[in-house]
């Protein structure tokens, strides 16, 4: 009987509402700003990868041209106070920014998501403890925490990522906790429990997949925040150690000569601003695209 039914019922080969993700991607493409953000960021990643193999000049080589010289045919963005090629340094700086931005969010997700899931799902003393610690971290000025940590651990790329993540994990933990709190009351969680699913399975097999949208949006907004924080630390001289260029330290290098050679400050600042904007546009677009209320 089932066989005949199968033969009779004709189904369209590929239903258009195939999945949440293809649906979201379709909506994201319709958002012009978000699409511009995606294109810019793709370009930025390509530049950062290219800089691994090729830069017009060696980024740390001093005196490739006259110090403070402005943009020209050989040095599109001019040279800094040591006569280093700014374009080459911005390309390498893109690596730093992306690694810090994405790396921080990887740590934030790795720490914040499990903590938030457990706090929201198990509630009780664990939740109270976590919420207390979250509020404690919110109470301490993040700049102070990061400065002290970098000072204690020493300035390196890894330590900067750790320091920023320490000041940022609470947003993710709090968001995921809220998601878990809401989802744990849903009937499919009850059904999963009734079918004998273990807590670990419920957390990572049921609640997490349903929270991915908000987590992705939060992480996307977290990347520019981390990049800005790194630029700020570098501007203060607590960023990646020289001669490694960071957009923040490049701007700091030029600040003394801003009247005579403003391009030294302007070039990395524009790179930074465009990147922050692109991530924010993308985050906004993702938020709209992944909003379940807008589905169909």
């Amino acid at each position: 009987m089932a066989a005949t039914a199968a033969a009779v019922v004709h189904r369209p080969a590929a239903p258009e509402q195939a999945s949440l993700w293809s649906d979201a991607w379709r909506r994201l493409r319709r958002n012009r700003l978000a699409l511009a953000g995606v294109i810019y960021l793709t370009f930025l990643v390509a530049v950062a990868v290219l800089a691994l193999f090729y830069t017009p000049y060696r980024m740390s080589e001093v005196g490739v041209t006259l110090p403070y010289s402005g943009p020209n045919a050989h040095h599109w963005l001019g040279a800094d106070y040591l006569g280093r090629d700014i374009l080459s340094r911005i390309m390498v700086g893109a690596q730093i920014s992306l690694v810090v931005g994405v790396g921080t969010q990887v740590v934030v997700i790795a720490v914040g998501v499990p903590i938030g899931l457990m706090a929201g799902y198990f509630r009780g003393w664990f939740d109270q403890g976590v919420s207390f610690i979250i509020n404690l971290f919110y109470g301490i000025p993040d700049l102070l925490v990061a400065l002290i940590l970098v000072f204690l651990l020493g300035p390196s790329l890894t330590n900067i990522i750790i320091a920023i993540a320490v000041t940022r994990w609470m947003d993710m933990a709090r968001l995921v906790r809220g998601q878990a709190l809401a989802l744990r009351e849903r009937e499919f969680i009850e059904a999963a429990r009734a079918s004998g699913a273990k807590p670990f399975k419920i957390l990572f097999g049921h609640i997490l997949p349903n929270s991915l949208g908000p987590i992705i949006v939060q992480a996307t907004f977290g990347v520019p925040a981390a990049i800005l924080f790194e630029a700020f630390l570098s501007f203060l001289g607590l960023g990646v150690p020289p001669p490694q260029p960071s957009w923040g330290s490049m701007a700091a290098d030029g600040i003394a000569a801003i009247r005579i050679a403003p391009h030294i400050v302007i070039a990395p600042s524009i790179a930074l601003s465009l990147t922050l904007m692109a991530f924010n546009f993308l985050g906004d677009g993702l938020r709209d695209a992944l909003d379940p209320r807008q589905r169909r």
Partner: protein
Amino acid sequence: MPSPILQVRDLRTQFLTDGGIVTAVDGVSFDLYPGESLGIVGESGSGKSVTALSLLRLVPDPGKVVGGQVLFRDQDLLQLSGEEIREIRGRDVAMIFQDPQSSLNPVLRTGFQIDEAMLAHKKATKKEAHARTIELLKRVRIPAAESRVKDFPHQLSGGMRQRAMIAMGLSNAPAILIADEPTTALDVTVQAQILELLADLNRDLGTAIIMITHNMGVVAGLCSRVLVMYAGEIVEEGPVEQIFENPQHPYTWSLLRSIPRVDALRHERLRSIEGLAPDLLHPPSGCRFHPRCPFRIEKCLRDEPRLQEVAPNQQAACWVTMDRARKEMGADDRTDIRPGAGSGLKPGELID
């Protein structure tokens, strides 16, 4: 008669609310026999769903099972460790819920979720589970099962989702399937199909079914025995035909009188049960049904009746019972003795 597969003894479940303690299930006892299909009926808030959830210790916060025993194959489910009860859930006792729309995880493929139910109990390898999922979907009569396994829940109709839930419930060949209002959220025609499916599965696979419902019609169609719950207690219990034919508790009687019937006489008005379900924070004294009961006597206000044999295999918790009420009112089986039905009898006449 074979020995019961499930013995519930004096089950008590309470909710700790801001206003005080609500005893949602108050001393419920019953047996379930292998392959039987048992109905638990009652209106909203009667404790029927909480009873079902209590059996598997799934009562949501701030609820808690505070007493009694749930004996399944000679072990008390209420005494098991968290790990042990998880083993029972879904493997030996499965449960399906009211709203198939929300009982499936919206972001996971339907077939995958059924696979998982089997893998959770290590009943099968991934490959075996997948093959069995398709088999199960065919068993519950989902057309084109091979392609439907890859569908997300929102791509299935309500009826198909409930079929998928039933397939998931059956995936580990449980001894007991608890169905908590499985047809309430569905269209009437689909309801009938689902009930028919459950009846078939009950007969063919020998799975015992506990059917939780507020719908007497569902009980009539599927169950052989029925428990009637009111305000957290069982007020009447017995074989379905007998209860429909000759209800002894005034609540059961009123419940049956409030079902619309196509064969009813035109001039017969549909009667709802007067009053509201009791506030369980402050349950009425004596018999909990007495404020709404048309046949109460003074004893009902003071003393709580216990379940007692009123006919072979039939028990009711009532001081009066319908037989006595009829006799005292001088009415035979045919007389309409509903309050205000124009039979010449005044409501509450029995109150002494």
